[in-house]
Structure formats: structure tokens, C-alpha cells
């Protein structure tokens, strides 16, 4: 592994981005979620089966930060759904390579969901396959793919993963 990838400051910076990502979503600061991405970023939530079979269909697909903002606006203004809490657990963050300032990073995630009358359950579990770049000194997602194992989604997936 290159010296850069072992740099503790770099690793802290990357981990901090993931912590912030989880915090923004779990505390429902959805308007801040697109800000963690570059303007031309790609984001999707895709079943592992499609991902591994080279099928592009995702259940959430944003081809720009603006599309993420549209998703947030729909959550706030148009969608009808039961009240819920979500909680992201992100672990095993690995910086796998660096190419001209772009970091490839993978991490495991589980998103827990709690509805008003029900026990907390695992809403979605999978792996982030991400690319990070620096923008104004801070790391931002240029690409974030949430590849989920949980083939059958328990009812609806309302908030981003």
C-alpha cells in the first residue's frame, strides 16, 4: 500500500466525511446531503444482483447534485409516508486506491429504520463503492454507489441510503 493511503491525517479526513454523511441523513438535515457531493456527482442505490450482472437499474439514481436536491424536495414536499427514523452504521472503511487526486473508497453499511409502532429493523445493508475528490480542501463524493444485499426492500425506501 502506498505511503499516501497510510497517511493517518488522510484516513481521518475520509472517515470524517462518512461520519458527517451518516449524521446529516440520520438527523434529517436532508438539504445538507447534496452538499457532500460534487456538482456533477453520480449517486445510486442499486440491488447487488443488478450490480453484479451489469444491469444498470437502480432504485434511486441521481446523475447530478441537482437531481439529489430534487429528491430532497420530493421528500419534503410531495411524498406521503409514515414518520420514521433512520440510523446509518458504517464500518470497514477502506481506501483502496488513489489516482490523480481521486480516492477509491469502499465501506460496509447498514441502515436501520424505526417506524412509530414497530421494532427497529434493518432497512438496507450493503457496501458503498465510492470515489472521493478534494474540493476547496475538503473531500466530497464524486461517485457514490450503494450496492445493497437486502434484495427485498421492506416496503418503501424513502430517505437516501
Amino acid at each position: 500500500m502506498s505511503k499516501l493511503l497510510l497517511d493517518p491525517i488522510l484516513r481521518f479526513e475520509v472517515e470524517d466525511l462518512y461520519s458527517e454523511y451518516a449524521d446529516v441523513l440520520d438527523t434529517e438535515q436532508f438539504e445538507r446531503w447534496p452538499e457532500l457531493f460534487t456538482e456533477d456527482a453520480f449517486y445510486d442505490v442499486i440491488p447487488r444482483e443488478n450490480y453484479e450482472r451489469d444491469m444498470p437499474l437502480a432504485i434511486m439514481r441521481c446523475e447530478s447534485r441537482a437531481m439529489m436536491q430534487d429528491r430532497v424536495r420530493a421528500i419534503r414536499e410531495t411524498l406521503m409516508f409514515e414518520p420514521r427514523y433512520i440510523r446509518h452504521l458504517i464500518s470497514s472503511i477502506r481506501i483502496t486506491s488513489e489516482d490523480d487526486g481521486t480516492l477509491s473508497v469502499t465501506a460496509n453499511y447498514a441502515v436501520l429504520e424505526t417506524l412509530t409502532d414497530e421494532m427497529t429493523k434493518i432497512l438496507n445493508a450493503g457496501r458503498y463503492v465510492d470515489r472521493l475528490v478534494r474540493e476547496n480542501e475538503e473531500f466530497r463524493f464524486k461517485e457514490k454507489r450503494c450496492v445493497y444485499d437486502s434484495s427485498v426492500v421492506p416496503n418503501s425506501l424513502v430517505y437516501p441510503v
Partner: protein
Amino acid sequence: MTAPATDNMLERRWPEAGIHQVPYWIYTDPGIYQREMERIFCGKSWNYVALGAEVPNPGDYKRSWVGDRPVVVTRDQDGEINVVVNRCAHRGVQFCKQNYGNTKEFICPYHQWTYDLKGNLIGVPLRRGIKKKGGMPDDFRREEHGLDILKVHNHNGAIFATFDHNTEPYKDFLGETIYGYMDRVFDGRELKILGNSRQLIPSNWKLMFENLKDPYHATLLHVFLISFGLFRGDMKSASVMDESGRHAALVNRRGEQRANQGTAEMTRMNENYSLSDPRLLQPEKEYDGDVTVVMQTLWPNLIMQQQSNSLAMRHIIPRGPENFELAWTFFGYADDDEEMDRRRLRQANLMGPAGLVSIDDSEVLKMSQDSIAFYPEEDGLYEMGGRGTEDHDHIVTETAIRAFYKVYREVMRL
């Protein structure tokens, strides 16, 4: 006609009023559910199971379901599609657990009974015993112990199957009108699979059909749709059925994003709504005529969605009386260019387990089940657009739901 369902602990009687009142016990009663599996899904009906493009090559297979019963869809070495029951003829093991794959034969892991892709039993290890001891009786005939085989119909790449080999021909089963709408999408062009998604909706499966047979809700509940004029009550539209009333099609045209008399009561409409990235909704006309939405509900287990350029099969798989799985397969045509692929993938944001429109439905279906489960003796009211079952040239109607329950009562003998 109003015979009690004797296989239940309580005597079930349909309300005297008729099909515009639907009793809530049909959404929870385990006896009713079993009867539905036997009479509706495993009876004289063509069930959707897969798209042929999901099993394009000889040896390809896909797991699927008819009602809640597991089957496997295969393409054999002759290129023909087969649908066989995913249950070993020996001791009942569900032998196929890979959702997709390619194989020459299926081998049950328990005692290695082996079947070809048409469902014929081709191997039984130790059939003649060991050193003349044991083995199957002399009169055991392999050809009598194949997998249960369903009858198959391939409508230009949409695969349907029926347990009852005496089911009427597929074309007659659909009727001319609905066959025409199916043929509009499945017109013989080669299909391209974009991918699948699955969700488990905690409600009775019939509530999903009611949802799609009720265009009236779409103009009120789905703010995203109405705000962008994607489905509107003030546009020329129709709710049409086959002669029996078991299938239906909702037909709509894209409207303008502008308030008018017809939208005055759509209190949740926001005419100033705009997208930061309009690429999400840039439909391109691809069928003749001015119709932009056709949502078909095919008895007993399919919703065929054509919403602008978003084409999808929604396969309804009941999972007990109070749950069903909705398995989505999004597709396009083999000759779509990259831009059309992307357009379909973007528009897929509206539908599916995280759909900007369909979340409203999966959420409201759960909220229905959350309540009606506790009031089996109460009835739902279905009087929008009258009490009859005729076609309507507007969307302020529940006629297709009434027609569905007319057929439901006949088939279920309720």
C-alpha cells in the same frame, strides 16, 4: 351465489349490497387466502412469470412464482421456454435457489434426482440399489415422476404460465382490448432488460390491484405526478376493461403544468413546482397516438406499466394474507440508443421501492392494512362513478375495482 365459505371458522358472507361494498375479511382471512391460491392463481388463469429476455440463451433459468408457489422459468436446448414447479418430485425440496443461472440440468441436492430443463426426470441415483439390495420398485417409471409442468404462452417476450392445462387460450383470456394494449408494448421487437428490484409490501395483494384500478387516487395522492401533469384528471382519459372485467387498463395523456377548473380540487397540486435537473422528466414519444400512460392490471398477478418511457412489469407475489412481494422488471427495447437507456433509467426514479410516485402507494397500502385488519366485519365503499362495471371515459371512477370483485366473487364462490 352468496354461498358461505365453509372452510373458515367464521361464516363469511359478502355484503348484501353487492360489489360496491367489499368486506374487510377478504384481506386477512387465511382460509380465503388458501382458496385464492387454489382457485385464482392455480386455477384457470394465465400468470405472468418472466420476460423471455431474462433467459435469453439455451440453459438459462430464472426463479419465479405463481401465486406464492415457487417455479423455475427455463430456456431449453431447443430455445423453447418452460415453466416447471420448483419442488423435487421425490421429497419436495426446493431444488433451485439461484435466482438466475445457466445449467444443463437441475440436480436436487438431497438425493440427486436429476431433471432436464423441460422438467423430465432423467436420473435417480441408486435406483437399482447396491449389489441387488434396495433401490426403487421394479414398476417405478422415471417418466411418471417428472416435475410438475405448467402450460406456457409467450406474448412476444412476455411469458405467462398456467397450472391448469385446460385454461382458455391466452388471447381469449385477455380479450381483444387488453390484448391490444399488451401488443402495443410487446409488438415483436426484441427487449432489453435494465434490471430488477423487489419490495415486500405489508398489505393484502388485492389492495395493490385496487390501487392500480383506481385512477381517481392518482390525481389526489400523487402530488409529484399531478404537479408535472404526468397523470391528470382533467386530461382525456379512460378506464377500460375486457369483457369479463377481470383485466383493466388506465389510459391517460400528459397534461400541462397549469392549474384549471379540473385541478381546483387537487389541493395538493403545486403548479410552481420545478426540477433543479429537468433531465429526470424528459419523455420522448415512442408509441403511436397521443396516449402517454397505460397502466394495465392483468388478472391474476401482473401490472404492466407504461408511464412515459418507463416500462416495467410489476409481478405480484402473495406472501400470506397480509403481505405481498412486488417484483419489478424494468426494460426497454434492444435497439434503444444510450440516450433512451438513460431516459428510462432516470424515469425509473418515479417507480419501484424508492419511487417518487410509488412510495405514496406502498405507504398508503400499509396504512390500509394497518387498520382494516382490526375490522373484518366492516366494508369498504366503492361508489365513485356509480355502482356498475362499465367502461368510463374519465378517471373519477372505481368501476374497474367493482368489475374485479364481480369476477373475484364468481371465481371464489363468495
